């Protein structure tokens, strides 16, 4: 990772709102994120935290009639938030591609695998039909499919879950994009298959010098694969930093609480840590104040900022709100 290189993707104050009953609700708020070339970034958070909305915003996959994007997202010098549909069609698949959670529904059930991979090259390259077919076979072999010719002829329902996700990856890397967004790519898979798919993603990233944004809820997956991590809560990034910083010196109360609630060997017999309360729903998102504050009520209100911003802790480690300075676990206090 060369620090001097210009960043691949920079978002500033990126906001996405959804229209529900003629009212706009913020699903993504003030997202400032930088993705460098050749980097593996993980965005981690629980359901409804806005991580998938972020992916769809960057990919331009939101329905323009019931969503609104503001702020800026610059990808290779291009302002994505101002891009037209035609402009997007030129970079999607070529420079920017995506892998989805459920590969069965993400593949067209009526088209052969070869056609579906071929399609992306047909639109973005000058390769002839036979050249493209050769490349399809090569791609399938690269993602670890043993009999590419046979798989190329098959339909999605004839493949196993792991095979389908390999096909999705082959499709995503077909034009050697600079950035791949993988939205929960292993959630639907068994643990042994998950490990293989993560290895494959990592390999693809290193061999093609692609950057990957991996979106997941699984902290173990993050720890195994990412270079850098952004933790999201209620539409905001609450902490970001290197994978070492996040897992070994987590600062934000949410990050610390999440890590504590993972079942580990050393807490096998104890109760697991439970974060009080619930994630605020989209309609009930507070307009101001720290969104995590209601879930750590024992921390005095004065510890929080009125309008929490990201604070730099050095070495690229950032944390939202000042409450991290005074945060402690109630259970530890009692003991």
């Amino acid at each position: 990772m060369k620090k001097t290189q210009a960043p691949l993707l920079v978002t500033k104050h990126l906001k996405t709102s959804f229209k529900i009953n003629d009212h706009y609700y913020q699903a993504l708020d003030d997202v400032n994120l930088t993705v460098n070339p050749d980097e593996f970034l993980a965005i981690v958070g629980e359901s409804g935290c806005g991580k998938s909305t972020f992916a769809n915003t960057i990919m331009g996959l939101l329905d323009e009639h019931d969503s609104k994007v503001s702020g800026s997202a610059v990808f290779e010098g291009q302002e994505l938030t101002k891009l037209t549909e035609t402009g997007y069609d030129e970079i999607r698949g070529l420079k920017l591609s995506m892998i989805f959670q459920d590969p069965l529904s993400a593949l067209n059930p009526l088209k052969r695998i070869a056609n579906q991979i071929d399609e992306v090259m047909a639109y973005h390259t000058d390769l002839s039909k036979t050249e493209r077919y050769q490349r399809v076979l090569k791609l399938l072999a690269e993602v670890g499919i043993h009999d590419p010719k046979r798989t190329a002829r098959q339909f999605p329902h004839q493949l196993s879950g792991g095979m389908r996700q390999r096909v999705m990856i082959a499709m995503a890397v077909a034009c050697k994009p600079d950035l791949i967004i993988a939205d929960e790519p292993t959630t639907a898979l068994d643990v042994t298959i998950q490990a293989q798919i993560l290895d494959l993603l990592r390999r693809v990233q290193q061999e093609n010098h692609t950057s990957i944004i991996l979106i997941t809820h699984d902290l173990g997956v993050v720890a195994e694969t990412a270079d850098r991590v952004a933790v999201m809560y209620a539409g905001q990034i609450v902490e970001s930093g290197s994978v070492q910083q996040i897992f070994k010196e987590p600062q934000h109360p949410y990050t610390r609480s999440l890590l504590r609630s993972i079942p580990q060997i050393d807490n096998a017999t104890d109760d697991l840590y439970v974060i009080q309360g619930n994630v605020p729903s989209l309609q009930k998102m507070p307009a101001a104040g720290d969104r995590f504050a209601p879930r750590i009520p024992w921390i005095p209100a004065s510890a929080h900022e009125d309008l929490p911003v990201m604070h730099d802790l050095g070495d690229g480690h950032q944390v939202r709100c000042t409450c991290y300075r005074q945060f402690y676990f109630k259970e530890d206090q009692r003991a």
Partner: protein
Amino acid sequence: MWKTILRRFLIMIPELIILSMLVFLLAKAMPGDPFLGSINPKSSPQQIHHLMQANGLYDPWYQQYWNWVVHLFHGDLGMSYEYKEPVVGLIQQRGLNTLWLALFTMIMTYMIALPLGVYAGKHEGKWQDNLVRVYTYVTMAIPFFVVLVLGIWIFGYLFNLFPTAGSISPTATGFGTVISRLTHIILPGLLGALFGTVNIVQYLRSEVIDAKHSAYVKTAKSKGIPMKDIYRHHIFRNSLLPIAAFSGYSITGLLAGSIFTEMVFSYPGMGLLFLNAVNYRDYTVITALVLLYGFLNLLGTLISDVVLAVIDPRIRVE
């Protein structure tokens, strides 16, 4: 796949036997007898008795049924009591008329319904969609015979564009017969099609909307394929699948269900034949037609199954 089709065929055999038995017994249970129209007050009970005996109407039902089945296999469905003609010949001639009408209706139905359904689905929630919705609601709300009568009045009577009765002009010769046949089916066919589109339009619309929001369309978008091409390569084909599968029912349904149209247009097809047969208790014709309708229904299911098996790789057995 051939095995599946063959099996489906074999399953039809017991279905047909049960159907034929039901049809036969129902016809027998109908009140009145076939000679009610052909006898006069002067006919003596002996004469009627002889007629009944000659036609085997005193035999037990299974005997009559068996005779009927044996004849059926010889292509002999008996004589029509009303027309004094072999039933097979009658149905052949009337059936051909109905077939032309049904084919035309079906082609028109799809030519109207497919673009409308896709158009409505594509512009979901916008004024274009609402316009199509108004069309389907209006068509659905007006009773069919009103549409037919109105159609005859406007196009046949006011504008005098099309003939309003019959299937062919008696004076037509040579190539003129084809033209004449065509002009006779345009109006009933179009009106029938108008009516038939409602379901297909609504169904296709929701299929297109489903496909539009499906994950594979999102994938296609993320590959940088322009939306109009996504419609062409992904959405259309996938949403037409169930419609295509339904085509089997459609065509056989039209063949069997044109009674209304044929009655209003006095179009000499199977529907009209059936109606008259019921009026005159023409058992042989009724049984033959009901059997044919039942057979067409079974055939429709078969065609639909086969079409689906051919076009949907998830069902296709390799």
